[in-house]
């Protein structure tokens, strides 16, 4: 067992599960999507991205790409949140909540691909 692989796999899977946790629920209802969860998703996704740095293989490049997509989506979601809460002060209206959650849904899709790639790599390695 390689501890590096454990940490690596842990963060990639955690990024997906947290993302899912934030995503589920009624899309327009702010009660179902807590901001702390969004924070955790962003942090764990950032960690997962940094962990993927510096791998020169084709698989590594693809993994990094999916993470970058997820980060991009999540940052967009947090910007929407910050804008709604602080800049124009409309608060978490159903429209704002829906756009935040759907952006995180896109990030989740990227995270799903990331996990699938991880599984494929593990299966192909057979060690």
């Amino acid at each position, binding site marked *: 067992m390689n501890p590096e692989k454990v940490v690596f796999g842990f963060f990639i899977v955690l990024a997906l599960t947290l993302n899912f946790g934030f995503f589920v629920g009624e899309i327009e209802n702010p009660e179902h999507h807590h*901001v702390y969860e969004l*924070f955790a998703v962003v942090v764990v996704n950032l*960690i997962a991205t940094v*962990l993927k*740095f*510096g791998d020169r293989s084709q698989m590594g490049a693809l993994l990094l790409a999916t993470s970058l997509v997820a980060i991009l989506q999540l940052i967009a979601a*947090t910007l929407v*949140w*910050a804008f709604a809460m*602080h800049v124009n002060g409309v608060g978490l209206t159903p429209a704002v909540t829906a756009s935040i959650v759907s952006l995180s849904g896109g990030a989740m899709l990227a995270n799903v691909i990331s996990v699938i790639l991880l599984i494929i790599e593990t299966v192909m390695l057979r060690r």
Partner: protein
Amino acid sequence: MENIVFLILRRMRQPLLTLLLVYAISILGLTLIPGRDADGNVWYMTFFHAFYFVSYMATTIGFGEIPYAFSDAQRLWVSLALYASVIAWIYAFGTILALVQDRVFQEAIAENRFARRIRRMREPFHLVCGYGETGTALVKSLTGRGQHVVVIDIDATRTNIIQLQDLREFVPALHGDAAITRHLQEAGLQHPCCAGVVALTDSNEVNLKIALTAKLLNPKIKVICRADSHDVEANMASFGTDYIVDPFDTFAGQLAVALQAPCLHLLQRWLTGREGSSLSEPVYPPQDSHWIVCGYGRFGKAICARLKNEGIRVVVVEAKPELAGRPAEDFVAGRGTEANTLQEAGVEHAAGLVAGTDNDANNLSIVMTARALNPELFVVVRQNQNDNHDIIAAVDADMVMHPSAIIADKIRVLLATPMLYEFMSLALYQEDSWACELASRVTALVREEVPTIREWLLVPGENGVLHEFLSHGGAFAVRDLLRDPWQREDGLNAIVLLVRRRNDRILLPDPDTALKSGDRLLLCGDRTAFTRMHWTVSHRHTLDYVKTGEDRPQSWIWRAWYRRRRYSG
């Protein structure tokens, strides 16, 4: 470039993770700890404010407490977060600085920069492998002529020194083993502008490998190799190495020319001399008695063969005949540094002496001992080390054989003016009086410094105006080319040595010889002559003046004016 990005990413993983964690924990803590606003109500910092606060706290230690003054619990947390973030930043910066100073990283950057420079080369260049004594001399004279050079050497100190030397062109240098194909490729072996490869390393095997690689990967470029043994020479010649330079054979050949035709030898030395060096005196090796050759190595053997060809009796002095091989000539065992050995070889009535061992101190000792016994002796001395130049010069031998200088001179001529070798081989068929006459013409041209040699090809581009003039049926003779464009009645201090026209070679063409487009000319003269001749061949106006003596107007108005005046007058 790819390499560097990956190196940075890989090394920065740990510090970036640390930073991320410190930021995340600090932000989370700030949002969880309750504070009190100006009215005493409990408030919680939102993620937005927490992120903003942590961002400026970590980098600048803060502008103050926003949006309200902090409670003591918040201040406690901020002081912890502050130290943690400062440490995380120091760690990240430290890693980056360490990375920049890292050898692997620096080598990756240097290699990258080198590869980029090579890729950007747009002019023909030569690849010189080995930057020892010979390589240094060669690169100096090539760059002095404005030619581009790329250097590979296995020794990092030598490649670093290049940037400190005062060379006229920038010389990219790669620290690497030239026997490895990848290094040759990085240095531009397959670059479309690569004109030639020169293998000058100390090892015959490496030179052989370079020649082989060059011939296989880029068959159309010129490959020039140094070789110290006949074995390797034959091997290199077998796969078509263009030129193989053996310093010992080259020098022995020069000595033979000096014996047969002293003027031709003088001419050779003048024409092949490095630009800026002074004209050398003629040497007249005597043939009236026997010669003594000390040291029967590769050099001694080459000399003996040539001397015997000239019908001169040779006495060989060799300390270890069992290693060097016992010569067929008269033979004396000994080093030659003692008087009795030399006396045994008949030094008192010998005509010449060759001090040709591979030890400079012994060579000097041989010369001084022999001179004491016979002051009239003609002395040839072999110089092995560059550093010994001053002491070798001080004994004032008639001829000095310095392998690195010989190789460098020969290769310089091969790369810059290969026609000169054609000229020399044609000159060998001439009488020595012909050479003497030419030598005196050359002295009249240049007085003290060796003449400048140029090879000109009359094709579009290089000497475009003259080529255009010729291809439109204009008549232009050698005489016209040698006119001074400032005062056409005066001649320039230059001689056309050779004209090559397809398979014809015209040696010292007559002044009335008409030039044709496509001709290749070999010229010698002083430097100003070439600067002025350049005006003739590259400016139509000057060319017309040189040809006709009329200073024709250039612009439309003046041309019209000129025509009217001519018709009315």
